[in-house]
């Protein structure tokens, strides 16, 4: 069985699994990292959103073999670690605004929000409504109004 090595939430991991198993299942079913959620498996719902080298991506649509040994995967569990705190400012903003309802989409929403703020900054601006409109993460409980507020709050503290 092929062996794959990469970094997850700051730790080097090695897994024995077929090359074409998508990373989401390696995280969830093999490594037991359950923060990334399944909602579609075809890169449309974005519930599984994580970061690869600081950028948002969807592990349901990436083969484990396509993850390089020096790639750093961050899931919601590892997000606070990226800022050396118990909670990332975006998570704080989420708590402050009491965003979550069922909570199923929220790990993905937060990971997307953090990346979107960085993307806007890299383009030389603060995140605004037009950027938020581009976020594809579905919230079936309809928490969009509070997400919009929380992203703007969280961005200020990032």
């Amino acid at each position, binding site marked *: 069985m092929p062996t794959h090595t990469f970094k997850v939430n700051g730790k080097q991991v090695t897994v024995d699994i*077929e090359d*074409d*198993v*998508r990373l*989401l*299942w390696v995280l*969830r*079913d*093999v490594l037991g990292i*359950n*923060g*990334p*959620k*399944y*909602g*579609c*498996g*075809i*890169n*449309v*719902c974005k519930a599984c959103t994580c970061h690869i080298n600081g*950028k948002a991506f*969807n*592990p*349901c*649509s*990436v*083969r484990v073999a*396509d993850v390089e040994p020096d790639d750093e995967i961050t*899931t*919601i*569990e590892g997000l606070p670690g990226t800022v050396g705190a118990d*909670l990332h400012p975006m998570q704080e903003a989420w*708590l402050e605004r*009491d*965003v*979550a*309802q*069922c*909570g*199923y*989409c*929220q*790990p993905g929403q937060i990971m997307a929000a953090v*990346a979107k703020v960085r993307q806007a900054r890299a383009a030389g601006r603060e995140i605004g*409504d037009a950027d938020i*409109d*581009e*976020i*594809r993460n*579905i*919230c*079936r*409980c*309809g*928490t*969009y*109004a*509070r997400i*919009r507020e929380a992203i703007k709050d969280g961005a200020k503290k990032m």
Partner: protein
Amino acid sequence: MEQRRSPRSGPPGPDTPPESPGPDLGRRRFLGYLVAAPTLAAAAHLGGSLAAPREAGAVIPSLPEVQEVFDLNDLLTLATKPTANLIAVVLNPDGTASFDMPRAESGQGVTTMAAMLIAEELELPLDKINVTLADARPELMFNQFTAGSNTTISMYNPIRVAAAIAREQLLKAAAIQLGDTVTALTPHLGFIEAADGRRISYGDLAELAAAQKTEQVEVRIKERSEFKIIGTPQNRIDALDAVTGRKKFAMDLDVPDALPTMICRPPTIKGTPASVANLDAVRRLPGVTDVVPIATGVAVRAKTFGQCIDAVNALDVAWNPGTVDGESDDTVLARLKKAEIPLTVPALKPLTGVVEGEFTFYWRNNAALEPNTAVADVRADRAEIWAPLQSPILCQEQVAAQLGLPLNAVTVHVVQAGGAFGRRMFNDVVLEATEASKKMGKPVKLMWHRTDECRQGRMHPMCTSRIRATYSGGNVLTFEQRHTSVATDYTQGFGEIITALGAKIPPLGQGNELGFSVPVFHLTVNVPYNFGAVTQLLNEVYTYDTFPTSSVRNLVNPDVRTAQELIVDQLAAKMGKDPYTFRRQFVDDDRVRAVLDKAAEVGEWGREMEPGTAQAITVHKEYKGATATLVEIDCRPETVNRKIRNAVTGPRVTKAVMAVDTGLPINPRGLEAQMQGGIMDGIAQALTSSLHLRDGTLLEGSWDDYFYTRHWNAPLETKIIVMPPTTGEPGGAGEFGVPSAMAAVACAYARATGTIPTSFPINHGTLSFKPKATVPPLPPSPTNGLEFAY
């Protein structure tokens, strides 16, 4: 004016309880129990003795409309009468309190509500209260069914009584410890305090206060004026778990050897497997441990879900036809039209004006983001289940029946749900997991693929609503509504197998329609305006199990009320009135008028709008409360035609303002969240979100074709106004926001475009995607995810 004129056992007033958890011994005094246990445990009847007096008075009058005096929640609450059963608050030695709640938490915030009620009476901080979801408790009978936004209404008093008894017992135990009298002591934030500053913690008292024998006790609960927590905005108690990824859903549970399992499903609705050509070959695929045909398809168990998906798609299955292979949207529509009960008021009467409309509402998926999930561990002599369930007792009974095991050999654990919206009243996923686990002889962690949800899941039934209203001399004389629907499956009954069977009484389907659909219709619908002679009738076509149906975040009202409000706007126009002032004049309830005024004021009704944009305002009353929604919509071409990859854009609701009166908002912050969610559903249902039926197959297969509201469809400005308490009785919330929101979006679209929409969602007529294949059943997992990284 009080909106509900429901019969009550006591004099109506702000503090009349919605139900008595025990015999009401006068104002705010109730009976409950101290329960013999190692630490302090106090209990109250859940809905138990609500009482003979109330039942005697619970005649369903024919006028005014049934829903106004006796709504679905009264029925759900009354249904609990024969079962005198207990729910308990337990004090732990670490100073925390625990409550095992016999309801589902799917995002509605009922665990937070329960914790608030306990905090209020127990004088314990919210973060010291653990609310868990109870396993199936068959002795609770009707009382473990989560539906109709009934949780708050039915739990409001029992939880407070149990917590109050615990507080009194702590005071007694502390009095002994501190050598003081009970009346000289004060419970405060987890301590019992004496006047001289000495204090003793609840944790230290937990064992000392434990009861030696179970006994009935009497307790006083707080008046509304004494509330410190109830009515204050509180954050959810599970928020930290949610934002850190620690919140556990069924698929996150670590049940030994329960490996991922998925099902290969038929290409048409309710098809069944005839034969499988390559079982052995698929069994040899990487990661796969088991492949077995079950009633609904072929179950595959593997090391990862990814390998399940690949194996499912590799299966070569011959399928038997389903129940509706010959049916499509247009055949169903033709059948609905044929079945419409005629309107009786003549369309043309001298000197009267007539407004008429006929509206079609297409199928909608429940589409919780967490798909159907269940973990099952079936052994020869027992079975254990973990799943998000709205009807756990029914589930336990069904599993026991399926396996031929006694009820007590089946344990059903209720897990928090990633949304429910009506779907988790049905236990089909559990029965599949049970069958697969039994046949494989191994535990399984069964999950539906998203595509299964769309294609073989449950849906809100397609329906039509026809309305004719007549007016003359400034008055509306008649208002007739004929709602015709594909049968809604109510066989989950009220969560208990006896009533569930009642819905199947032959001739097939009639038990369902006469026993449930028609009563539910009359218990939930109304016309909230003084419109003279009002009639509303329901007719259903097909049998309850022809199509897989269910309620989808509210039963009939989103459609029923949308049809009405579109006609109301036309009546206003024909009678030369502004839509708001017209409604203001004709609403039949002061609470409705108050929310209408509030929404109009905050939403700046009547402000000048650009061409192609418009406001609309609507109302709704249900769940012992009232809502009004004002929306602004942008239907200008540059907005409607904006392009987003794999998405529908269309008209955009730019602003939504909703005023809500639930009688007594327990947690205004949670209520606001529910209303915000209701608005997003209203937008989806009016504009974008439906299933297309073609030759027995639903064309939608995921979120890129089932267009629930997305960030780019959501209003830029959303404002919820929670009205101060009115009746003093809590109402429902989970489904309550949808009807007026959907109606407002539809009306705004009509006003902005000048075209009254007649079918919903408005984009249903154009298929804006390429349907995914049905064989193999699942879309292949993409490999290009890194290309979209940002």
